[in-house]
């Protein structure tokens, strides 16, 4: 699986005040105040590769390039972790549940964990198919608390409660919210009681529309702390 650079995708650095120098372009992907990720060219046996500090974004099924870039930009900005957009893969067939005509989100995560060997410390899969879990009739996304992989589905985000199609802008906003929520779970964040916070559990799209595109102060603090931990103690592969 090859890695597309930001230049490949035409993606711009998300941080408006980022350093325009060549070194600064890499650093632009790092959150402000965080140590700069290592340059691949200077990798030694002791230093982990730069991509270990990144999140790998994988399209699984036909999502659309713009939607993927929207998610990447939001994750970089609000989580503060650089994003590599990776080549698309097919959603694993072993995750398909014939009796429910849906894909089991847990099995998709398991597939990405076990079968896809990627250096990135976090992986986010975006699927077009409808996802479910053994206990829930559907899920917008799934992630393990403190794990490596999260997955989100676009399937139920493009319609309103009454079945009417939703506006594109709202669809992208919902997708970004679900992606941020699930990625934050991989940084050990729990559901939040603040009804405006991105970590508040949203069982329906109407609830997703109600929350803001921001973490509450407490969750934002937790995210920053846990992302910093990633730089302090890089995962060992």
């Amino acid at each position: 699986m090859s890695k597309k650079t930001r230049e490949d995708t035409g993606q711009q650095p998300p941080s408006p005040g980022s350093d325009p120098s060549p070194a600064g372009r890499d650093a632009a992907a790092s959150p402000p105040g965080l140590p700069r990720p290592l340059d691949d060219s200077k990798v030694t046996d002791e230093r982990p590769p730069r991509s270990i500090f990144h999140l790998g974004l994988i399209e699984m099924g036909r999502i659309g390039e713009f939607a993927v870039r929207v998610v990447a930009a939001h994750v970089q900005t609000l989580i503060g972790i650089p994003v590599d957009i990776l080549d698309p893969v097919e959603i694993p067939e072993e995750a398909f549940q014939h009796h429910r005509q849906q894909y089991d989100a847990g099995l998709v995560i398991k597939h990405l964990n076990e079968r896809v060997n990627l250096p990135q410390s976090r992986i986010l899969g975006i699927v077009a198919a409808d996802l479910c879990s053994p206990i829930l009739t559907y899920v917008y996304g799934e992630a393990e608390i403190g794990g490596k992989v999260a997955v989100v589905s676009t399937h139920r985000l493009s319609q309103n409660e009454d079945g009417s199609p939703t506006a594109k802008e709202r669809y992208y906003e919902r997708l970004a919210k679900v992606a941020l929520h699930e990625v934050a779970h991989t940084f050990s964040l729990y559901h939040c009681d603040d009804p405006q916070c991105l970590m508040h559990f949203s069982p329906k799209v109407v609830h997703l529309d109600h929350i803001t595109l921001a973490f509450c102060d407490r969750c934002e603090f937790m995210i920053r702390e846990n992302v910093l931990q990633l730089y302090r103690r890089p995962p060992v592969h």
Partner: protein
Amino acid sequence: MTGRIKILVVDDELIVRESLIGWLRKSGYEVAGAEGGRQALSILAEKDYDLVFLDFKMPEMSGIEVLEQIKANYPQTMVVLITAYGSIQTAVEAMKLGAHDYLMKPFEPEDLVLLVEKLLNQKKILDENLLLREQVQTKIRCEDLIGASKCMHQLFGLIEEVARAESPILIRGETGTGKELVAKAIHSRSQRCYGPFIPINCGAFTETLLEGELFGHETGAFTGAVRAKKGRLEMAHEGTLFLDEIGEIPLKMQVDLLRVLEQRTLHRIGGNQEIPVDFRLICATHRDLLREIERGNFRQDFYYRLNVIEIEVPPLRERDEDVPVLAQHFAERFRRETNKPILGIQQPALDLLSSYDWPGNVRELENAIERAVVLAKGRYLTRDDFAFLFKATPAQGIPQSLKENEKQHIDRILKHCKGNITKAANVLEISRITLHSKIKKYGLQPSMK
């Protein structure tokens, strides 16, 4: 419901169990899983859970069987039955047996969220209800802290002042003066009044038992510890801990308690987990702790940690004007409790009570009134109803002459009345002149105030 909410998921299907556990953990709950009824019951035997999700159809024990056991042994725990084989009949049967709700797999995400929120709110209300009942009882008992004397008015003022502070308090006073009532009054007027008031008499336990009682223990911490138990320190979280007879506490435990007070965390016996505790400490003693420090029985550092504010509860003999007020109050209370048609206490009886020196303080007075109310034949309590207070002690049980008895009795009454001839004559129901002549006859020395 204190600390983190604990939920147990019981399902024989691993994938379902782990999926539900995962979802609940994401919501910040402390979650455990069990693959069957027997494992679930052994987990419940070790720790209290707020909510149990219980699969209806399991191989070794059915959900209904497990539900019956849970309701019988852990009635405070809420149970939700989950099944893929649901029907109205099973739902009705489960609800009749005490299940709080019923879910069919797979659930709608919103149904699960709303159900968990609803049940945890119900649990919170039930727990608050228990707490409020406790509060009402505490309030009723606080009413016994009454007095018309100047020193009691000063005490009431001091209680109001110190209640709002968070500092530890040391209450000093003789046995039976009402030190616990003072502690309860402070708690009920403090910002922690909605938290629990947890009293423990440190003098009533052996060292080993006291340690277990204060710190609690984990399962298997010692022989017989078949179930984990919270200690009083943990139970007092967000409330007030009242350590009565603190002077009796062993030196080793003084160090342990000092550590808890400094670090605000504790470990149960046999446990590794650090448990945060937040309580206000009120201690009481009848001992002179400074003398105990000199003797090496009490740690100085512990004393200064406890004794930030000191309150002295005066003995009843030093506030004899409170005796009639307290006597009437207790008579009214026991009249209500025993449903006896007692209208009050006659004045001579009140004078007699005031003349007694009450070595057992308010508690002795309370017991005396209770005994008098229970045994009273008339509508008013009379001197005769309190004659038992002045009965000869066993040491004086040797046959004595009438003269000797009269001499001792007058001497005792004079002492009780602090040499006040008028008061003593009233109690003895003789004139002042007669009393003077008897004092002269027996060569008594009326003690002066």
